[in-house]
């Protein structure tokens, strides 16, 4: 099967504006994501996960290497790659439904059709009854549901997610992870999901890509091999296969965190 996304020799560096130091964020990343695959990328903080995702999104050009989508090089942002950002990136001056419809508006989808799609995704992410609310009236978890729905409604070929559940409370996070799992199963989208949370990476990913500490390289690719319908947190805590995979990924990440006092 040809890769949906292919990263070839991807490297990136930037200059710290205060110290004038050159920081190599990514160095020679080779990675392929299959059609319909859910790939999670996990690694210690500062390993270049977000840089990787921004390059994939086309928001910054890589210093070295290429990103291929269906074999074509990525040169800028495009609606074939939807992004869910870590911070809530929905617009405060649009209601829930107008935020979700935004991608469709941009694509020029007629109003009636837009309304139907919005209704479907409002239901899918469990926001019925909140269509007319403004973001400041919503909790963090609900805002991120809006962001996910907005990305899904635009129907991108690939979904890129940058620690989307990092800034919501633990209880909500568990719910959102299970919902995303169901969405992935229902839509069959190709998803690349970046996180520093090992449990999350193993719970969600078909494969789990472990990045090394800075400069980020692919350290290991760990297949999870548990069918989507069995992925609930209840099973996760009791299933031996889950536990073994989690321990394996955790050990790999731990090697990279090293002496730093940081728990993944």
């Amino acid at each position, binding site marked *: 099967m040809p890769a949906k996304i292919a990263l070839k020799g991807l490297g990136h560096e930037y200059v710290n504006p205060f110290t004038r130091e050159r920081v190599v964020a990514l160095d020679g990343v080779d990675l392929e994501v299959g059609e319909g695959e859910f790939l999670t990328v996990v690694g210690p903080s500062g390993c270049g996960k977000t840089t990787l995702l921004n390059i994939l999104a086309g928001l910054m050009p890589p210093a070295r290497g290429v990103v291929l989508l269906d074999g074509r090089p990525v040169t800028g942002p495009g609606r074939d790659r939807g992004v869910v950002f870590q911070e809530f*990136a929905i617009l405060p*001056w649009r209601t829930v439904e107008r935020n979700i419809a935004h991608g469709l508006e*941009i694509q020029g989808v007629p109003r009636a059709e837009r309304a139907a799609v919005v209704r479907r995704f409002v239901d899918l992410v469990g926001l019925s009854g909140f269509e007319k609310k403004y973001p400041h009236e919503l909790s963090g978890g609900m805002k991120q549901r809006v962001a996910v729905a907005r990305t899904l409604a635009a129907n991108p070929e690939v979904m890129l997610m940058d620690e989307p559940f990092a800034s919501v409370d633990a209880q909500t996070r568990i719910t959102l992870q299970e919902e995303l799992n169901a969405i992935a199963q229902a839509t069959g989208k190709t998803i690349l999901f970046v996180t520093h949370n090992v449990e999350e990476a193993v719970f969600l990913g078909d494969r789990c890509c472990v990045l090394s500490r800075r400069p980020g390289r692919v350290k290991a690719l760990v297949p999870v091999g548990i069918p989507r319908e069995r992925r609930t947190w209840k099973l996760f805590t009791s299933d031996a296969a889950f536990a073994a995979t989690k321990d394996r990924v955790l050990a790999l990440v731990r090697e990279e965190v090293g002496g730093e006092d940081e728990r993944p």
Partner: protein
Amino acid sequence: MTVRWDLAATWAAVLAVTLAGWGLAAATLPVPDYYLPPPTAVFAAFGDLVVKGILPTYIAESLRRMLLAALIGLAAGVPLGLVLGMSRRVADFAYPLLNFFQSVSGIAWLPLMLVWFGFGERTILVAVNYTVLFPVIFNALLGVRSVPRLYVNALRTLGASRWRIVRDVLLPGALPSIATGMRLGLAYGWRALIAAEMLVGAHGLGFMIFNAQAFHLTARIMLGMGTIGVLWLVLDYFLLRPLEEATISRWGLVQR
């Protein structure tokens, strides 16, 4: 907008006490009448000038000039501020320049403008428009710069065009700042208008109070001053604040 009756009652009481104190001072202090006319004289002047049609004409004249300046300020200042704010380099360059011209108010320009544009309507309009325009441009620019980059990036990944980003992100994101700019610009402009009318002397409230001084019509001066203040309160309360509330507070961009 709900009427706060308790607040209104407090204000009525404060006003009554002030007027009573003023009346008492005017009646007892050993100064000529034109030094400190009693409140009744001011009310009499009000009645007199309304009957003669002078006050309504002058108010209309001042408001017309102000409205024109507000429209031009909005139509020219907002787009200009948005465009300047869109590029970081341009914004960094324009910032001190705009800040400079904002601080050199229209009043400071008046002597030069009188030379350039003469003692007439043109000088008044240029001075007031200038004064309104700079805070509007300046704050529109600040508004654009304050829009989180994240929102722009989010729209870019949805495939939005540059124009779409301006319309859907930069303009609404800059609105709180634009509203501040409008409010500031009109407040400065109102002062510049009075000053310009004083110097140029072609109708208007500024002309009225300056002209009254030549004839020691102190009550008329006080009436003019009161009218200037009250008109501003009305403009601000019924025009600028509702505008702000209709959009910005509803979006949760302004915490009240």
